[in-house]
């Protein structure tokens, strides 16, 4: 157990340094760096959404709305109010968290698909609001946001997200969430406060979506209401389903794969969406549980492959 943790630690540091060096020496051309950053942001978005949809079983369709909150709040703080980056990111995340509670409390109390409808509405309302607030540039959005998201921040926050959610999921709280997903009535009969856990998972997911949004804003230095359309929420959902509902490593792999795919299909324009949809259908037919199902990818898998399939 200890050895394993040390090994993972070393691998993670090595990955960080390797990419750091690759960027520094120009091995990763600036054009490709965009995809690297998108990959990190997508991992944060997918893993946090998986906590809500995959682990707790609550269909949420407005993840981009929480990314918008994190992006706008942090951008206003750094660009307009001259605050440092870290507090700006955290403020964006906390705002998303609070809005998560405000939306979650009334809707998650009810059983049924109220959350899906409410979050769908929320995503659109946020955009509508932003378009009408001149202070944040209306439809034109905020331009000239300082480019503060670098590899180190991205890597740190991606790790923070993955490990926070992993720890949460493996805690008693996480097991309560899984119990609710598996059988809400039975969870209630155990004395689990199901509304509390659903709202908790939902707002923690929103918190990390806020971080993803803040990192996004400070890398692309331009954010517009249209950036955070339903398609972005849908993208995150595709990653979660693709990777497996309830598998963190599945979400990570899927987020990387989808980022790759988007980059590869960028010249296909709207055809991209068709290919996307086709892929989804194919996955649903041949692997309805997603890449990983609810299982996690572990070092053991890796060694098993190296040992030629013996275990």
């Amino acid at each position, binding site marked *: 157990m200890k050895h394993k943790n040390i090994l993972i630690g070393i691998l993670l540091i090595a990955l960080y340094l390797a990419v750091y060096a690759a960027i520094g020496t120009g091995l990763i051309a600036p054009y490709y760096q965009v995809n690297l950053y998108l990959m990190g942001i997508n991992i944060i978005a997918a893993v946090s959404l998986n906590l809500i949809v995959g682990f707790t079983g609550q269909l949420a369709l407005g993840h981009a709305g929480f990314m918008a909150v994190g992006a706008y709040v942090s951008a206003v703080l750094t660009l307009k109010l001259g605050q440092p980056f870290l507090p700006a990111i955290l403020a964006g995340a906390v705002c998303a968290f609070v809005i998560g509670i405000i939306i979650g409390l009334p809707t998650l109390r009810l059983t049924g698909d109220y959350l899906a409808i409410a979050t769908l509405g929320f995503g659109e309302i946020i955009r509508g609001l932003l378009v009408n607030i001149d202070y944040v540039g209306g439809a034109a959005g905020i331009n000239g946001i300082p480019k503060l998201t670098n590899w180190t921040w991205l890597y740190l926050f991606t790790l923070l997200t993955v490990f926070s959610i992993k720890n949460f999921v493996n805690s008693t709280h996480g*097991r309560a969430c*899984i*119990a609710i*997903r*598996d*059988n809400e009535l*039975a969870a209630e*009969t155990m004395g689990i406060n199901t509304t509390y856990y659903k709202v908790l998972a939902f707002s923690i997911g929103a918190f990390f979506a806020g971080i993803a949004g803040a990192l996004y804003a400070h890398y692309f230095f331009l954010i517009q209401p249209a950036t955070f359309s339903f398609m972005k929420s849908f993208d995150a959902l595709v990653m979660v389903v693709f990777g497996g509902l309830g598998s963190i490593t599945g979400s990570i792999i899927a987020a990387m794969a989808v980022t790759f795919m988007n980059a590869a299909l960028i010249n296909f324009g709207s055809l991209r969406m068709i290919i996307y949809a086709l892929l989804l259908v194919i996955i649903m037919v041949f692997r309805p549980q997603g890449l990983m199902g609810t299982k996690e990818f572990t070092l053991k898998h890796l060694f098993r492959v190296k040992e030629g399939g013996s275990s």
Partner: protein
Amino acid sequence: MLRVENIDVYYGAIHALKDFSLEVEEGEIVTLIGANGAGKSTSLKTISGLIRPKNGIITFNGHNITQTPAQEIVRMGLSQVPEGRRIFANLSVLENLEMGAYLRQDKRGIKQTLEKVFDRFPRLRERIHQQAGTLSGGEQQMLAIGRALMSQPKLLLLDEPSMGLAPILVKEIFSIIKEINEAGTTILLVEQNANMALSVAHRAYVLETGRIVSSGAAKELAESEQIKKAYLGG
């Protein structure tokens, strides 16, 4: 121990329980039998505090629990095994059982109860780290009952424990229910399988479309011509 007095329960316009009353004395096995859709699950959910009655009173050990939150009711010693797919499929056997002790803080006590549950269900001990969704139907039912026992209930509500099980397993489950009762837990058993239910219960109630239509000693009901015709296939 449990007294339900004249409750009415609605789902919107559907009047699911009509002037429903029932009593369970300490130490008894009481069964509530009725056809599909009669309102059996609704009555258990209402007693557990998952649904609220429009009127009427529910008392448990002298406390009025009509408006008490579900968690509090569990804490007071009333635990329910819901019908259908009852277990947490993606958690292990052990994690399922730990969930049953969710409201308990006494680590040592939990361990003792866990041992007792494993003694009663040795098959669960053999599968302690197995994912619960991969257990057989009978094992899942045992797990669901074991999980409910983890909260050390004084009154155990069972919602159709025989549902979907092979006859031989039904027999096994019912003899376990009897054992649990003999070890000191009072039981309210909801069943469609009237034959089995009447054979283990002390007293019985018959529910028809939300209304109690007869009640009495289980043995007497099992002999009654009317009941035989309607529920016992004779």
